[in-house]
């Protein structure tokens, strides 16, 4: 049984710029992983390649044994950094939409989370604040029982209380058959919930370790090490 996500010599270039350069990665299921790096390090490019929103310039990427395509889209739940949902829809309509297109969507979970966050399913997205929209997007993403969750900056635009709830949800959602990859700048907040950490710099992986390995070996938090490695 191969790993959940495998990359071999994955390269993506835009013109003369190498956004990702010969990335080799092997990710197991049942892990919570932090994809860390400054802007333009290739994090979003990597995630888009997993999602088939970009195609590799060279090299391979496989998820669940498949190349990015319909089969992988069925098992990946993606939370982009932007507002990507139809603005005019009500939350209830969005839930229906996700249920229509994704077999693994759990409607009850979605409504449960909506309640816990005090949101009304009859509200239209365009009437919501940015933070609330992001909560809705997160709820939809986490209500899927996917094999791979790709979260691009999931806690950036929300208040600290919601942030805690989101981290809580990720922990609660954990199961041995799925993996969560979180791409973020807010390392201090999330490092305790991560298994592994991948540092990405200028399109290349500069470090892959577990959180405890980093703390043990360097006597620092991942956040501190990050600041060191990526000092401007």
């Amino acid at each position: 049984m191969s790993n959940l996500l495998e990359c071999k010599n994955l390269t993506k270039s835009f013109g003369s710029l190498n956004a990702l350069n010969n990335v080799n990665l092997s990710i197991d299921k049942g892990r919570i992983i932090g994809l860390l790096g400054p802007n333009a390090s290739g994090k979003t490019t990597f995630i888009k390649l997993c999602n088939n929103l970009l195609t590799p310039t060279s090299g391979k990427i496989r998820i669940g044994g498949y190349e990015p395509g319909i089969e992988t889209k069925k098992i990946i739940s993606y939370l982009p950094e932007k507002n990507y949902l139809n603005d005019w829809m009500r939350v209830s309509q969005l839930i229906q939409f996700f249920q229509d297109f994704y077999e693994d969507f759990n409607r009850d979970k979605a409504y449960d989370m909506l309640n816990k966050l005090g949101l009304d399913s009859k509200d239209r997205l365009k009437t919501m604040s940015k933070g609330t929209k992001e909560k809705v997007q997160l709820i939809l993403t986490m209500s899927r029982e996917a094999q791979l969750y790709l979260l691009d900056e999931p806690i950036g635009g929300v208040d600290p209380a919601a942030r805690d709830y989101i981290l809580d949800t990720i922990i609660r959602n954990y199961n041995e058959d799925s993996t969560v990859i979180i791409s973020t700048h807010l390392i201090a907040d999330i490092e305790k919930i991560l298994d592994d950490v991948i540092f990405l710099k200028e399109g290349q992986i500069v470090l892959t370790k577990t959180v405890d390995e980093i703390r043990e070996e360097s006597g620092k938090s991942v956040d501190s090490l990050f600041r060191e490695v990526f000092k401007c």
Partner: protein
Amino acid sequence: MLGKLLKYEIKSTARIFIPLYALLLVFALLNKFLNPFEVMESSVRFNFQSVFQALTASAYFILIVAIFVMTLFIAIQRFYKNLLGDEGYLMFTLPVKTRQNIASKLLIAVMWYILSAVAVITSIAIMVGPREFFEFLQSMIELLKDGLGVASLIILPLFILIQLIHGTLMIYDAMSLGHLFGKQKLLASFGMYAALYFITQIILTIVILSVGSTMFTSFIHSAGPTDVQILSFLGMLGIVAALLSVVHFAITNYILKNKLNLE
């Protein structure tokens, strides 16, 4: 999956068209009962009623123009916003094939072209009165049958349909090609459209000159083209449009599948 895409495409667009059509029918009814066209024929009397009638007549005409503009605008905007904009992050991560995404946009765009035409014609029918309208319709059908033969009743609508499909796919193709140009996407799309239009004209000219030449020579010798000749000419143009449509679809599909680069 295509069915589901179609369902949501209709939901997204109906919110705009249904109210417009409803408004059109309201004004059609208003005009029918106020009969402003009488006012225009007789002498002008500036009382409240005549001004009101003039206004409702103008509103009606403006609405018709608005509906046609809207139908084209929405066809373009749905593709641009929902596939090439931020919503593309949603649409292209759904477990559907790229060609299904394109097809759903195309099919619903064509649906609204047809429905808009039907709405406008219905509103006219309401204003002139159902009986007069159906009489007019029958006489038009007779005219076509006499002039171009029974086949024209099928070939003409099909011809219009294929031209609508071709036109729409050419716009999608232009937007997809424009998408490849990073910063100047919008400008590039217009440029691409101009280029595609130009190329299409050249192709049409070549086709008409080569294949059509045989038809034209017979025109010169006889009194004028026969219905069969006219219909087969249209048929030929239709086939060219169909082939070009396939090309445009293929290019659009290739670009969205392999060269997508959302902001």
